[in-house]
């Protein structure tokens, strides 16, 4: 899987969702459709949506069919997304057609007789009408259990058959057009059911335009609370201060000098400051006047204004950064976010968590009751957060930090997201930890996407700390560490992932290479042996397996592996170089082969245009092994040049040492264990 791709995809979804949350239209303003069956052996349908009046534009959802008023014509209830959210579409059709309607009572089958197939046979036609009693169809809907057959003008009923669930078929007598019948399983007869005479015909009244009220004024109570993110406002002297002050409830208020309702609201607070102080509530009133202007200018507007009105609470200036955090919080907490009007206020509890969001002014009386609610039980809050009386079964979905961090990320602030998450500690609640781990995983992935690798590593590490079974996070962490050549740190994670997902070869490869890098050739060889036996065509597995075997004193096997690898990939510089080095420098006479080593080294040097440091090192060693020390020194000098350019001190030291040996006409021989 390619994480970057997934995240590009995920971002597209996020963008779509955010846009819809904002209130954008999306394939909206579509009208409901009605299609008339034109009959015949392979009937076609004709669009009559407009002509029959059903083409309303409601974002329709579920349709439940019923002859609601027993007038012999099918009506339907339809639920909508827009207003009104429910309609009863009454069938006012005028035709010469007739109907018959039956309700079934199961005896040996299920009592509702759901699944029963009713067949209506008509005189003079071989075709029959079938209807099945269903409980649930369409989308989110269930239609009536009355089974309603239309009977075309002039047609006569020949018979009615019920195929009860389970397979028994029964002829039913006594059915006639224009009536409603009850049919009990096994009785063979239909009993006429009389529509209550009192049923009045359905009326219509003119409907006012759809009610879509603005949400300038609303009190939104949180059923469960999340911390208000760390946001800084400006004090009047320009000092940046964190808005959350734990220890007592705080009302953060947005206002402006030009906003009359704001002023009225502030005056009412000033008037009742004693009550507010008694409630233990602190108010932080942040001005949004001239947001983009320098602090001094803004202070010049706000300060005299306040002094005149003797506002007794803390006052500050909101800046763009503060409003952005406010918007993050609003988007995370309100289902359909609309820019906050002024005045708006947010009531935080003593722990700095968002308790109530007010759009529009708040009265002191309201504040008093809401402050009293801060310590309320979950059950009370659930009721308070609901719009009407009712019964909760499971309760609202508990708020998780995920919503908040999603918003931070859609504002391009993954670091702020991580910072927000960091205030949640590992708790005893396994599920909460798992959710939090997922959040860290998402943030880590986003940070990685933005190439902020160090923070990404921290986020992934935190994810697995919260949820040790989070293999995806562990794999991402290990991969990052591996790519950053932090092999020692990568090793324990790679080991765990390999145990959990033994079939993923890529992880095992990373593990093997990390083991080689940390000189654990015993274990490296174990994994590489596995990899090369699983896939004998895997050149690199063979090569690194050989590499480890040489260091374990099993050079003979290693040589065989290198040669097999060379057969598979005759042009691979890596393979040629590894084999040439072994042949040029190994102490075992059985393996030592300066002539072939030189041939191979020259081949690879030519192929790499003498620009590869390691190839040159091998070439020099092969030249020295063949007694050509003058050339060897020249070659090693070229290699030293490359090492200098690469600023690789470790290899430079090695090369210098070898150079001294060549000057003393001593070929280089590896000191390795011999089996």
């Amino acid at each position, binding site marked *: *899987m390619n994480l970057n*791709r997934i995240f590009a995809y995920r971002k597209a979804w996020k963008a779509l969702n955010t846009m819809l949350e904002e209130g*954008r239209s999306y394939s909206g303003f579509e009208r409901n459709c009605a299609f008339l069956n034109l009959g015949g052996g392979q009937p076609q349908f004709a669009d009559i949506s407009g002509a029959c009046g059903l083409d309303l534009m409601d*974002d329709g959802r579920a349709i439940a069919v019923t002859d609601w008023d027993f007038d012999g014509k099918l009506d339907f209830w339809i639920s909508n997304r827009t207003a009104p959210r429910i309609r009863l579409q009454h069938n006012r059709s005028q035709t010469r057609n007739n109907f018959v309607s039956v309700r079934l009572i*199961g005896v040996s089958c299920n009592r509702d007789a759901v699944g029963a197939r009713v067949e209506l046979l008509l005189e003079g036609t071989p075709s029959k009408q079938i209807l099945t009693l269903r*409980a649930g*169809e369409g*989308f989110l809907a269930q239609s009536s259990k009355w089974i309603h057959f239309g009977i075309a003008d002039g047609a006569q009923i020949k018979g009615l058959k019920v195929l009860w669930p389970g397979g028994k078929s029964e002829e039913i007598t006594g059915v006639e057009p224009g009536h409603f019948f009850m049919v009990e399983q096994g009785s063979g007869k239909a009993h006429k059911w009389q529509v209550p005479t009192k049923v009045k015909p359905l009326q219509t009244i003119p409907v006012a335009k759809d009610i879509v009220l603005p949400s300038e004024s609303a009190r939104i109570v949180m059923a469960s609370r999340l911390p208000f993110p760390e946001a800084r406002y400006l004090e009047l002297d320009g000092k940046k201060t964190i808005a959350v002050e734990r220890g007592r409830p705080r009302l953060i208020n947005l206002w402006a000098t030009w906003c009359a309702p704001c002023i009225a609201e502030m005056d009412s607070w000033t008037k009742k400051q004693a009550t507010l102080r008694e409630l233990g509530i602190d108010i932080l009133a942040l001005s949004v006047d001239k947001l983009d202007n320098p602090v001094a200018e803004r202070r010049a507007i706000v300060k005299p204004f306040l002094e005149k009105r003797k506002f007794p609470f803390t006052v500050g200036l909101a800046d763009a950064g503060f409003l952005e955090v406010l918007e993050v919080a609003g988007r995370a907490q309100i289902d359909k976010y609309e820019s906050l009007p002024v005045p708006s206020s947010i009531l935080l509890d003593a722990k700095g968590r968002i308790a109530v969001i007010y759009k529009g002014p708040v009265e002191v009386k309201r504040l008093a009751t809401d402050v009293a609610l801060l310590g309320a039980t979950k059950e009370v809050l659930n009721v308070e957060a609901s719009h009407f009386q009712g019964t909760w079964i499971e309760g609202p979905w508990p708020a998780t930090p995920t919503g908040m961090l999603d918003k931070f990320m859609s504002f391009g602030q993954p670091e702020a997201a991580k910072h927000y998450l960091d205030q949640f500690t590992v708790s005893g609640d396994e599920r909460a930890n798992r959710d939090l781990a997922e959040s860290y995983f998402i943030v880590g992935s986003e940070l990685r996407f933005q190439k902020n690798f160090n923070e990404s590593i921290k986020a992934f590490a935190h994810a697995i700390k919260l949820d040790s079974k989070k293999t995806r996070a562990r794999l991402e962490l290990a991969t990052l560490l591996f790519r950053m050549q932090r092999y020692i740190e990568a090793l324990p994670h790679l080991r765990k992932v390999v145990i959990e997902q033994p079939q993923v070869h890529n992880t095992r490869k990373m593990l093997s290479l990390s083991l080689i890098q940390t000189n654990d050739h015993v274990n490296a060889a174990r994994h590489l042996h596995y990899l090369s036996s699983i896939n004998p065509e895997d050149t690199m597995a063979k090569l690194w397996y050989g590499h480890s075997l040489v260091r374990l004193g099993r050079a003979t096997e290693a040589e065989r592996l290198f040669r097999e690898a060379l057969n598979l990939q005759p042009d691979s510089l890596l393979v040629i170089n590894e084999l040439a080095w072994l042949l040029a420098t190994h102490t075992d006479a059985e393996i030592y082969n300066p002539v072939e080593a030189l041939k191979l080294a020259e081949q690879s040097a030519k192929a790499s245009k003498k620009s590869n440091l390691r190839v040159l090192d091998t070439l020099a060693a092969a030249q020295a092994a063949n007694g050509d020390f003058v050339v060897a020194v020249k070659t090693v000098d070229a290699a030293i040049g490359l090492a200098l350019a690469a600023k690789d001190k470790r290899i430079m030291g090695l090369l210098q040492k070898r150079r001294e040996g060549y000057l003393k006409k001593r070929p280089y021989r590896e000191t390795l264990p011999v089996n």
Partner: protein
Amino acid sequence: MNSRSLTNRSWLDTAIVLVVSLLLGVIGNVWADSETVSGRSDGLEFHRRLVDEFVNIDPGENGWESESFSEAVSIEMKSIAKLLVHPDGLAAKELEVRLADGFISGPLRFTNLETINEGGSMRISRPVTDSEKTKKSVRRGVEGFTEALNYLANVLKNASERRAKFKVMHVEVKGDLILTKMLFEMHGKTTKGRRQVTSTWHCQWILADPPKLHSIRVSDYREVAPGKNGVIEFIDVAPALLSDVASYREQLAMSFDYWRARSDKSLVADLLGAQGVIVGDVNGDKLDDVYILQPGGLPNRLLIHQVDGTARDASTESGVDILDFCRSALLIDLDNDGDQDLAIGLAWKLFLMENDGKGHFTPRGGFRSEGQVNSMAAADYDNDGDLDIYVCGRDASGAIKAEQGALGIPMPYYDANNGGPNTLFQNDGDFIFNDVTKAVGMDVNNQRFSLACAWEDFDNDGDQDIYVANDFGRKNLFRNDEIEPGRHVFVDIAKQAKVLDIGPGMSAAWGDYNNDGHPDLYVANMWSNAGNRITLQKQFLPGADKATRAQARRHARGNSVYLNAGDGTFFDKTQSSGANMARWAWSSNFIDLDNDGRQDLVVANGMISAGDSGDL
């Protein structure tokens, strides 16, 4: 009174392009790496090239820029539609600026019509021949166009409630000439009933700002009017029926968005507004009552049908005023005691309530669903005399998401199998239901984004099969096989039955629409204007073969009509059915609108309508 726009909207434009892409699954397929695509065990190969193209797609070269042209054309056609609605103001001056030099048009209205459905409840008529496309009917210039428009508008002479609309279906750029195909519809209410005109306009435009109309040819002309045998008409009676019901005025009369803007996200957490409605006889008086599901924080409503025809809100006294987020419910007799109990789909739970026979309900516990509950449907799958319940679980639970790594977003878009699992709950008596999904073999292809399902004995072998409509992919048709007496298992035969119907499935309905005794199938999928416009262009997936293009196009093609062949398979009648273009469909039901004994169709429609500018 908003202080100022607090939002940085710069990303919004990008987002719009992304949305159009999403319609087509363009971005969705970036997930599809080689492992996902190759080596399918079921032999269903997605065109490799399609996937590659989706990964590397360049909006600039694949037809997106003509979307802006489509917008310009829409604006032009909007004013022409306006003229048709208010023909009195049909002034040559207004038209002149819109027409190119040498403008030429065939007839916009045909008069030599024949009735397709003689004796039907509505008269559907179409031109007898194309004979009117003679030189005589050719109109030229502004005068000709004015005359033709006037003549068309005259179909609705003296009509009220007039409406006219064009939908741009297809844009093809040919140098300076642009060809568009548009759907036209016009309605109005005359003294003799409602009339409707639909047709297809093929137009040529000269590239300019704004574009200038160069020629028009009209095809597929249809008129719908009251028929000899009567008229089909519907009207919403809820406002009158529920005028005394407080919850209608205070809750249901307000849109979903109204409540969303006032709600803690943890209450509602959904912008689809997909809340169901069910009817059933709650108190045994044989009159249907109605139960309306609501989002979290708003209590579900039970309206009891009174003997005098009115409805009374009995939600609270019946104990069913549930505040939890609910999508669906079923009124069924769960314990065979002769009354209708309630099975309610809470977000992650099948919740049961027992009816005391008088319409009072007592909670009887619930059973967890690992998929977020959408539609449900009951049937006695094992014919043991009680009702079992199939629950569609569209989105995966947190636990599943955490394991599988797709973050809950459908991947790949065209064939996602990382949604929530559906569950078959077997009724084991006394309100105990057991998850038998795996035991009956329904756990294959089971993590699709299922929105709807419908039971039917489609092969007439005496047991109930089920069709499942999945979003973002293929559908399931689980055939019920009784392998030994009383033991039933299911096999997903959607592919061999030819009802795989790969696409964004929304709803499923069975009905024998040709009255041959074999139930046929109507499956709702989204029909997307933008999706069609883009995928129909030649420059979409340039060089791609026919099959590949067809597959891309299919995602926006609309509702499917499958005629039961009677041999366990279906004929795909979508293209010839006339019931294909049903817009962004949700519930799509068979219903005999005019009692002529034939199954007609109604389709609920529209994704998100919002009051702002520019629908996506």
